[in-house]
């Protein structure tokens, strides 16, 4: 099988303006992947499936990955005017000062596809697509028209992560019930407070048990029935 860089070259030759990015994979497995731009993803996928050499006719796995927002603190050298006393006289002097700047790198949701070839018996090729952010721009093109295997798996990624696959013939929740409002596999999902606090908890369960018992003492068991003491935020999507 050709390596990921060679496949990238082949894609760019066949599908002009494809916007394919090579993503190296550190670690011993060395399964490098290609990141596709959402606009041309279906064209690239069709090429990968139909090309005589590559013949990736078998989509094995579709996964969702959640990359939350990251706060990055970096030290930057900045030129600033500072008032200093030089030889007993106050002056404004230009100096380079080190400052710590914090910025929030926006997170994204990612869909990862593993492709194999049944005709040529080679693989895997890993392709990925990521959304613009985690909040409102969560659409990606669906690859179900290219490989039928993506049908249920993309529904599951929609259910658990919230990525909306445009072009999917039947996008609804797969595993959770219809009225469920959260996307549980996200890293910031708060679970409902229905834990049964066993008589001898410890560590973080003990902390939660104590909070729960305090809340029960204040409100009574009836007051807490049917609701949790955890704070949670609901994000509503236009379906």
């Amino acid at each position, binding site marked *: 099988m050709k390596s990921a860089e060679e496949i990238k070259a082949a894609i760019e030759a066949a599908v002009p303006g494809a916007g394919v990015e090579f993503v190296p994979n550190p670690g011993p497995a060395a399964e490098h992947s290609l990141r596709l731009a959402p606009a041309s993803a279906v064209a690239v996928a069709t090429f990968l499936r139909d090309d005589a050499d590559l013949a990736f006719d078998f989509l094995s796995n579709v996964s969702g990955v959640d990359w939350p927002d990251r706060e990055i603190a970096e030290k930057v050298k900045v030129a600033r005017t500072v008032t200093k006393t030089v030889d007993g006289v106050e002056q404004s002097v230009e100096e380079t000062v080190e400052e710590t700047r914090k910025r929030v790198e926006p997170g994204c949701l990612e869909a990862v596809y593993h492709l194999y070839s*049944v005709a040529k018996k080679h693989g895997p090729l890993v392709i990925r697509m990521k959304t613009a952010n985690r909040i409102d721009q969560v659409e990606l093109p669906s690859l179900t028209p290219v490989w039928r295997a993506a049908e249920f798996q993309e529904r599951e990624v929609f259910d658990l992560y919230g990525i909306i696959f445009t072009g999917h013939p039947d996008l609804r929740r797969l595993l959770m019930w219809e009225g469920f409002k959260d996307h549980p596999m996200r890293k910031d999902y708060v679970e409902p407070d229905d834990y049964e606090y066993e008589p001898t908890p410890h560590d973080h369960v003990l902390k939660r048990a104590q909070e729960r018992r305090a809340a029960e003492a204040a409100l009574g068991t009836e007051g807490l029935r049917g609701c949790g003491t955890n704070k949670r935020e609901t994000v509503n999507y236009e379906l």
Partner: protein
Amino acid sequence: MNATETKSERLDGWNRPPVIAPDGEGELLEVAMGPHHPSTHGVFRMDLALDGERVVRLKPVFGYLHRNHEKIAEQASYLASMPYTDRLDYICSLTNNWAYALAVEKLAGQEVPERVQYIRVILGELTRIQNHASSIGFLLQEMGASGTPLMYAFKEREKILDLFESLTGSRMMCNYMRFGGCRVDVSATWLDAARKVVAGLPQFVDEFETLLSSNEILMARCQGVGILRPELAVNAGVTGPMLRASGVDYDIRKVDRYGIYDRFKFRVPLGDHGDVYDRYMVRILEIRESIRIVEQALNDIPAGPIMDPKARIRGFRPKPGEAYGRIEAPKGELGFYLISDGGPNPYRYRVRPPSLINLTVLEDMCLGSNVADVVLIFGSVDIVLGEVDR
């Protein structure tokens, strides 16, 4: 299919058969089959729209056994997820363990000693034998055979489970494979007991085949029912005996050659028509091939260590990266996709469930057939709900 169709039209998985228009007047009867149903292999629901007895639409509904395995695995360490993999495909726990151990060994770059490879092959093929036997037993029960073939299959399964119990401590949830090795060593007495069990297996398969394979009712009910075209099977990601019954020669043991499968001589049975009868025959023949593999492995197993000496057991933190490891489980291709961020827990842990993906084509196979055939077609897919819903 005529010659003027382009290749992508033929391979396009969304090339669905036309919805069969109901003949005559009247509305469609909408029935929910499940989640509590004697033939649905667990808690699974199919929303059928029926025109008389014929199926016009079939929508499967999953999630009744969604136990949040992937979320729990993100909060537990790599080794702590091993007992949870037992409960995925709960009839074949040892192959689930093997797939997960393979994926983690790929992620961390670990080697596996020779003896462990042989042990894995022996246990994996024994698991395949008892899974295929149980699956045929359940299929026959749904056909109306009221438990007798199931009793025969479970009789052999109990002998194999005795072997598992004496080695791993548990009949079903074995939790035996480790990253770079396995938990305990097999003793010479265990190998002798295994040889005795395997020696009795060909006679069991002969008895099973004599009773079932040329049985009139089985042939009448299964031949020509639930046909799956090979192009649709490949495009829909179907794997395992279902794919091979449609005639596609793809067995991951031969393709990926993971473990030491390239040392064993075994054939891969393929079907011609892709109907329920072909899937049944492929499973019977795979039992016979698995018996051959186990006999070869029991003969050649070498002495040696059972754990990679360089493997870290405490403080196991694989380097950041990702890996996808897959094996030929009895139900199909079982894969694990792991992303590591250098910590003790996986950042992303994903199971590729063969049973869920094999069900993608359930509607295509069942359209136009009777409700009784739906039960059979569904039984021939051979799913386990623990794997479908995870």
